[in-house]
Structures are given as structure tokens and as C-alpha cells.
């Protein structure tokens, strides 16, 4: 008794399924990347703090996702005691890692 099938709208569940699959793949990657950045930030802070006292807010860690590889950028601001007007010295470290 499927004669009246054409009267019904096209089923929406496959659309829901596809949208979810695409979205969740993206979100899972974002969440794992965010937790990686937090971990790196905490550990870098711990290592640097052993030698210089720094403001935890002055560490920037980011991952740039590229085609073949991703770039990890770490920026740590260290107070420059030599500067007369409280200037800061920007120490930048950039490395490349294979994309995960």
C-alpha cells in the first residue's frame, strides 16, 4: 500500500544523520585540540616558571591546521628587567608537527 507515497514529503531522517555526522566529526576534533592546547600551555608554564617568573596569562599556544602538517605556535612573554619603562620581551617559538 505504497501508492500514496508520492504525497509524502521526502524523509528527513537521512538529512539529520548526515548533518550530525559532519558536525560531530568537526566538533570532536575541536574538543581534542582544545584539550591538547590546555595541556601544552600548563606544562610549558610549569617548565618556564622554574627559571623565570612569568604571568600565566602571557602564554599563547595555538595550532594552525594545514594540509600536510600543522604548525604549533608558542608565545611566552617574559618581563624584561632591563627595560626602563616595564617593557616586555617577546620570545617566540614555532615548530612544525605532522597533522594528526
Amino acid at each position: 500500500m505504497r501508492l500514496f507515497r508520492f504525497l509524502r514529503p521526502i524523509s528527513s531522517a537521512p538529512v539529520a544523520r548526515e548533518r550530525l555526522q559532519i558536525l560531530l566529526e568537526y566538533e570532536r576534533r575541536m574538543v581534542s585540540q582544545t584539550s591538547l592546547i590546555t595541556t601544552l600551555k600548563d606544562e610549558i608554564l610549569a617548565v618556564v616558571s622554574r627559571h623565570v617568573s612569568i604571568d600565566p596569562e602571557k602564554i599563547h599556544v595555538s595550532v594552525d591546521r594545514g594540509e600536510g602538517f600543522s604548525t604549533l605556535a608558542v608565545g611566552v612573554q617574559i618581563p624584561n628587567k632591563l627595560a626602563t619603562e616595564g617593557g616586555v620581551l617577546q620570545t617566540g617559538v614555532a615548530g612544525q608537527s605532522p597533522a594528526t
Partner: protein
Amino acid sequence: MGKVIVVTSGKGGVGKTTSTAALGAALARMGHNVVVVDFDVGLRNLDLVMGAERRVVFDLINVVQGVAKLTQALIRDKRLETLYLLPASQTRDKDALTEEGIARVIYDLRSRFDWVICDSPAGIERGATLAMRYADEAVIVTNPEVSSVRDSDRIIGLLDSKTEKAERGDRMAKHLLIARFDPGRAARGEMLNIQDVLEILSIPLLGVIPESEEVLRASNLGAPITICGQQSAPAHAYMDAARRLAGEEIEMLIPTEKQGLFAKIFGRRAA
């Protein structure tokens, strides 16, 4: 030592409280000692669904803060003598709950009961992370609907990172409970089907609870559906889910549509 289960979902209104009450009562009917714990501070509802709202004297926060003893706050169910409720506070703010305090209460409950079933609040904030913090296993309640599935995925991520078990490097066992499933709509492609949800979330299925008027009737009456509507389809589904949780091997019955003549001819929901 008993087992601590968190019933969680991320999204609100999917059936966490109903499922906590139903699974708790089902396990108690099987002869286990069960306590259901409401973690939804400020918006407690498990007491109402369990029909114990007028018997609440002390609550979880009182116990955490040492104002009341655990035995003073526990409410024994009037129908099942092995079923207890530990209500949430209605008034005080949720910051009153500390990790150490909760750890202590959970430890106490674990030594007294076979099952400690924690009803998580919605969301991914403190209340929800505290409810899952000391769990051994998790029941994730999901409706076959996009926002619920997405939020369940987030919660699965949290269970794998923010719980004590995950931090120890252990794997938290997770069970998927699909609630409010409408077999007719799923068959017609109007609703995600069980296979879709399972493939997307990729955690093992604990049960499928069909959408039913009986669920509202049970909460109106203030009784878990596994007590007051024992013969209904959702009660059977919850009983089976509870048995699976307890380790029994039970065949998974996916609800199917009961079609009337009109529905058969037109392939639509007749009601």
C-alpha cells in the same frame, strides 16, 4: 561495594529523571538495594517523580555540609523497601557542593547500597560534572533527535576526560538508553532510527524506551513507571535495561509500530 551509575545526557528534557526513577525501581524490584541521588541542585524533581516530595526533610547539601547524617536524609520508598532517595536541595546554591564532600557521600552510599544511581542535571556545568565525577559507569539518555544526539556526544567526551576514572587512565563503561522512540516515525524516515544513533555515538545500547502516554501518567501519579505501569511497553523496556545493567544477557527488542487500518493504508500516523 556497590556500583555508582550516572544518568546523564547534556540536553534537558530527554528523560534523565524518569529513567533514573524507572531503572532504580526496576533494580529494587530485582531485589537489589538501590539509592537514587538527585544532583539537580535548585531544580530538584526526582522527589516528585518518585512521589516523595512531601517527605523531604534533609538533602544532599545538608549531608555534604555535615548538617545532617546520611541516614537522616535518605527517604525510603513506600512501595519498595530496598529503594531509597537522596533528594537535592531546592534553595541553596550549587557551589555548596564540593568535590571532596561529594566523594565522601558517594563513598558512604557505595558501602551501604548495591546501586547508587545519580540523576545528573542538564548541561555541562559544575552540577553535571560533579554528578559524573565518581561514577563507575554511565547511562547516556538520548532522544532520536539532532540536538540530543549532539549533546550526548559532548557528554561522552566529558565522561572520558573529566571523571575520576578517566583521570586514573581507566575506561568508563557507557550505556546508551534511547528514550522517546517512535517506531512509526522512524520506519517512515521521519526520525533517526536506532542504527543511525548507534553509529553516530558508537557506544553499546542498553535499551530503547518507546514514546508512551504511560510515562506521563506515571509521573502524574508520582511513581516510577516500573512500579505503577508494570505492564506497559516502556516499563518492560526499562526492566530489560535494568537487567542488562546488572549483567544479564537479554535479547534487545526494538519497539515496532502497531498500525491501525488507516495508518496501514496511508502510511501516516493516524492519531
